């Protein structure tokens, strides 16, 4: 009967109940988005780093991967040293550069990666084959589209432009042999990849046998931290960063995102709480006579408490469920905006949905709904029966 009364009381003021639910839904959507934002970057960045199975990255001493133009000397020696370790199964050296690329009358600049095709973990081949000869490259759709080129076309690349001689330096004629998707690059960023030695040669003497980065894959079950530490002690020109450390560094750099998410999430919860408390209090104030009569005919105080708290909880839970759907839609939209941030890998998700987040948001909102009903419920249940009925009669 209490259920019937609670349901009927909510249905009685349909518009008000609906508005309250919508208000909670907006608040819940924001809460879910903030919970997703708080964990999304870390989880998706971790997944991205681990997606190719490399647990350790080596950058020039004191830097992060691709954070500077600095490079690591004696790349082939570093590879041999690392491969000599029993816990290392693969080492992928990568050299990064910026090249001018021409096709017909079209000339654009593009990011270039020099890799060893057999062990690389920077791109996924979509069509064609990986570049293994020194005149072969693979390119992504953004570059091919910008050039109006296709797989099989011949392209001219240059490492730089000499303003005194008015000529390009390090010019080569190369053939596109594949279409690829670069895993760590931003959406729309034009890029190509070629054999490491080809790019070193194009870049000139300053890049001979140098790499910007090494990615190291360990044997299954190997201790990542001890391997990382040992590598750093063996190869003095590098800083070794495990995926876990990289995630921590990214977390430190983006800690304001988490703080923002925490503050906005708390505000959402507070707004939802106040909204439900206000609406249930207004509703209770309108029904003081009803509660006094229920008490007069022998309905226990706890039943009144249950009814009012149930009304608050129903508004909060229905609103929260609606809000979860709304939150997912807004998260997708916001993600599409944030994904356009320059320099961010396309695969990074700011708002990553995890069932745990949904349960956490629902749990927090349900708890808030119950707490929000406490004051109005206490007010409704603790009325003095006689005076309340007298006041209602006078009113």
């Amino acid at each position, binding site marked *: *009967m209490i259920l*019937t*009364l609670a349901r*009927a*009381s909510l*249905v*009685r003021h349909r518009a008000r109940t609906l508005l309250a639910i919508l208000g909670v839904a907006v608040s819940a959507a924001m809460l879910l988005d903030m919970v997703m934002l708080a964990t999304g970057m870390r989880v998706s960045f971790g997944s991205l780093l681990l997606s190719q199975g490399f647990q350790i990255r080596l950058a020039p001493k004191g830097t992060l991967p691709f954070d500077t133009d600095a490079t690591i000397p004696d790349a082939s020696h570093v590879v041999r040293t690392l491969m000599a370790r029993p816990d290392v199964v693969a080492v992928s050296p990568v050299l990064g550069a910026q090249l001018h690329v021409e096709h017909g009358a079209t000339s654009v600049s593009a990011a270039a990666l020099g890799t060893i095709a057999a062990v690389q973990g920077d791109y996924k081949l979509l069509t064609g084959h990986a570049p293994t000869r020194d005149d072969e490259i693979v390119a992504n759709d953004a570059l091919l589209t910008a050039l109006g080129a296709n797989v099989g076309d011949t392209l001219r690349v240059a490492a730089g432009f000499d303003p005194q001689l008015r000529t390009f330096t390090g010019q080569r004629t190369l053939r596109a042999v594949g279409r690829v998707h670069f895993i760590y690059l931003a959406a729309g960023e034009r890029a190509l990849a070629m054999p490491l030695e080809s790019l070193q040669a194009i870049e000139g003497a300053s890049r001979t046998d140098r790499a910007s980065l090494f990615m190291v894959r360990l044997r299954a079950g190997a201790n990542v931290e001890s391997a990382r530490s040992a590598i750093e002690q063996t190869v003095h020109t590098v800083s070794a960063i495990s995926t876990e450390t990289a995630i921590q560094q990214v977390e430190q750099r983006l800690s304001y995102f988490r703080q923002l998410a925490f503050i906005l999430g708390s505000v959402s919860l507070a707004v939802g709480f106040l909204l439900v408390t206000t609406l249930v209090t207004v509703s209770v104030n309108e029904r003081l*006579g*009803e509660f006094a*009569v*229920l*008490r*007069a*005919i*022998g*309905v*226990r*105080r706890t*039943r009144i408490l249950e009814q009012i708290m149930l009304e608050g909880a129903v508004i909060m839970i229905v609103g929260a469920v609606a809000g979860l759907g709304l939150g997912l839609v807004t998260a997708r939209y916001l993600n599409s905006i944030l994904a356009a941030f320059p320099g961010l890998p396309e695969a990074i998700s700011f708002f990553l949905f995890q069932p745990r987040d949904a349960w956490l948001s629902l749990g927090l909102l349900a708890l808030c709904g119950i707490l929000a009903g406490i004051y109005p419920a206490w007010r409704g249940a603790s009325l003095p*029966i*006689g005076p309340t*009925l*007298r006041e*209602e*009669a006078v009113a």
Partner: protein
Amino acid sequence: MTDDGLLVSARGLRRDYPMAGEIVHAVRGVSLDVRSGEYVAIVGPSGCGKSTLLNMLGAIDAPSSGTLTIAGNRVNGLSDREATLFRLRHIGFVFQRFYLMPVLTAMENVELPMAEAGLEKAARRSRARELLTYVGLGERFRHRPTELSGGEQQRVAIARALANKPELLLADEPTGELDARTGAEVIGLFDRLNRDGTTLIVVTHDEELASAARRVVHMRDGVIVDEQHR
């Protein structure tokens, strides 16, 4: 109820409460006995303390002093929980403004006290139907209060008051909101209830209702000043 048929025994009931910094003596030492099956009307001018007395008889309000025994239960001194249970089991209330739950149907309103008493759904449905038929609303089970006239609402309220078969039915100005015709219907219903064995105490300004009672208690300034038996 005691062996001698005494249902209500009030001795020296007083009710004082603070109002605007002063103590109001609403009821000042009322003693009243009511036997089972009696039909008592309490009359008197506004503010004489008759509603306060009724509230004390119904365990809605606690006396400041004095003793009150109803159906063998010492009512003064009951905790809130005990008083609630006492009202549920022993008292039926009818209010001037009906006070039905607007969101429930007539049937559900009558079921409400029975649900609280833990009666199973089928049993309370059956009793609610029986009571609504008794008060002449056999065709109006599914109607909500807003779909009923004032007289019909008061009859639903009477059916609700009878739901748990109370020993005592208390009514506070039950015809106060009704026109003469529907008021007469309610008076007739009370008369039938009393003839069928229900003990009634009504507080009223309505002379016709008071004249229908077998016993009329006159109050003034918080005390009983006269009594008439018919």
